[in-house]
């Protein structure tokens, strides 16, 4: 962690659940280094903590390694150094299907739907892990259709023919159909109309109340800081700062850093 880290700040977006410090750590990256192709290293000693039923935000300039951090957490990349700990188990390099089995799901920045399958088939494939339990699959589908009524209306529509916002709801629904403990969200509102973005942020903000821990990567600094209990700033695959929403509004150094790197002025 960097010297700027402040561990005792007040909670941000989900203070109703108790402070950041009061919550148990459920996922940790410890000095993680990771690369896509051999020697092109993207993460260079990243450390961060994800706490139970809290929203952990990750911001940083383009190329900082935010998306790579999530992909490494989800097992798409194997750390070359350091470790990733889920609960009290080192899960570094475990493949995505293993992460899913442990209650972690992932919604990537790029569209991840199967365009030539229907909305319902996309959601059914999300139930792959427990596909042989027909009753559980049907119950899970109905639960998601209850959460996203628009998907119930479009259940027989090909996913590729939906609007961008509706496609994002399918991806969120598919991630939630397994009742995850932790959801990793990469730019959930990228290329989405502002009205739908607000709906998505409201939805994300309510997830901890349902017992779901959120890790949120976002270019939208204002929204990310607003909804997150703790925000980590990344640059060149390293920690450059961290703090709660309140710390962000009081710490001049953090404000300057964000203003300089992200071209965004925190009020």
């Amino acid at each position, binding site marked *: 962690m960097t010297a700027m880290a402040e561990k005792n700040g007040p909670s941000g977006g989900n203070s109703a659940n108790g402070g950041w410090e009061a919550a148990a750590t459920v996922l940790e990256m410890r000095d993680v280094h990771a690369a896509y*192709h051999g020697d092109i290293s993207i993460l260079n000693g990243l450390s961060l903590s994800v706490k139970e039923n809290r929203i952990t935000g990750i911001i940083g300039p383009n190329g900082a390694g935010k998306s790579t951090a999530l992909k490494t957490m989800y097992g798409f990349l194997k750390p070359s150094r350091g470790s990733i700990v889920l609960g009290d188990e080192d899960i570094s390099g475990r*493949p995505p299907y293993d992460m899913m089995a442990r209650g972690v*799901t992932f919604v990537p920045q790029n569209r*991840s739907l*199967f365009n*030539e*399958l229907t909305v319902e088939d996309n959601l059914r*494939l999300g139930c*792959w892990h427990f596909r042989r339990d027909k009753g559980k699959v049907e119950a899970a589908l109905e639960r998601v259709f209850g959460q996203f009524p628009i998907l119930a209306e479009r259940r027989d529509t090909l996913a590729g023919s939906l609007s961008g916002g509706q496609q994002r709801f399918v991806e969120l629904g598919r991630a939630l159909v397994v009742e995850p403990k932790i959801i990793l969200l990469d730019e959930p509102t990228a290329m989405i109309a502002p009205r739908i973005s607000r709906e998505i942020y409201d939805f994300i903000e309510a997830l901890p109340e349902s017992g779901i821990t959120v890790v949120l990567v976002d270019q939208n600094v204002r929204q990310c800081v607003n909804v997150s209990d703790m925000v980590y700033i990344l640059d060149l695959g390293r920690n450059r700062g961290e703090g709660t929403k309140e710390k962000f509004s009081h710490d001049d150094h953090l404000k300057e850093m964000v203003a300089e790197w992200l071209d965004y002025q925190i009020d």
Partner: protein
Amino acid sequence: MLSEVLVWNAIIGGIVFGVVYALIGCSLNVLAGVLRVINFAHGEFIIAGSFFAYALYTGLAIHPLLALPLCAVVFFVAGRGLYYLLVPRLAHSDEPETSSFLLMFGVSLMLVAIMTWIFEADIRPFNFSFEPINVTLYKVENAYGEGRHGRVLVPTARLVALAVNAVIIVGLTWFFYRTLPGKALRAATMNREAVQIVGINIHQLSSTAFGLATALAGITGVILALVVPSIDPNGGADFTLIGFIVIVLGGLGHPVGALFAGIIFGFVEQFSNLLLPQAAAQMVGFIILVAVIFVRPTGLFGKGVSK
């Protein structure tokens, strides 16, 4: 003027060989779509299937139709084993698709060598026939002049091959469009990363695809053994080439497109043989291949494959 008998024979040949080619294209497409592997050894797997039926019939007197399910099981298991032996290593390559091409070319050479070693280099006639040998499909009056009638005769083996192929194609369509594992395989052709995101073990799915494609190649070989006069250990390259033409025509990564493309190519091949000199007829397949690549690179039914 063309004889009506010859035209009918070309139509029937087009359908029979068309569905065989459809099966070849479909299995190649499963591999190309799910694994991003262009299987240069596919033709040799087909020939291996023919020899499998030949060995069972000549050695153990097992009927070729009984050899079909045996072949499917043996080739499926062998395909899965070969996947785990070879394909995951490609992930370490900087150019996995090029490496896969070279790797499968090596496998094709190895298979030819093994088949030549076991069965020797001579072509082998498969001395099996159904009773009756031919079925009269259609009588043509005045086919060869006034008062000289002709008959459209179809070898029973071709009708059996057509029926078996039709059952397999219906089964495959049901599998791909009605079952969750089939949809998962189609999903992998649409977005391989997303398949992993939903918690599917990509190696299990890929090995299933490899096993399925190998089993289909083996089955195709058994069916071909019924309709071609002999089996040649070096004949696999012709079928690989036909498979490539079919998947280019139908669209890479589009199994159903391959079904239609196979039948189209079957008709084109048969009518080329009927209407053109032999040397020119052999060029038609290449002309189609080049023309489709230039005019519609995604094929007649393809929309492109996402990485």
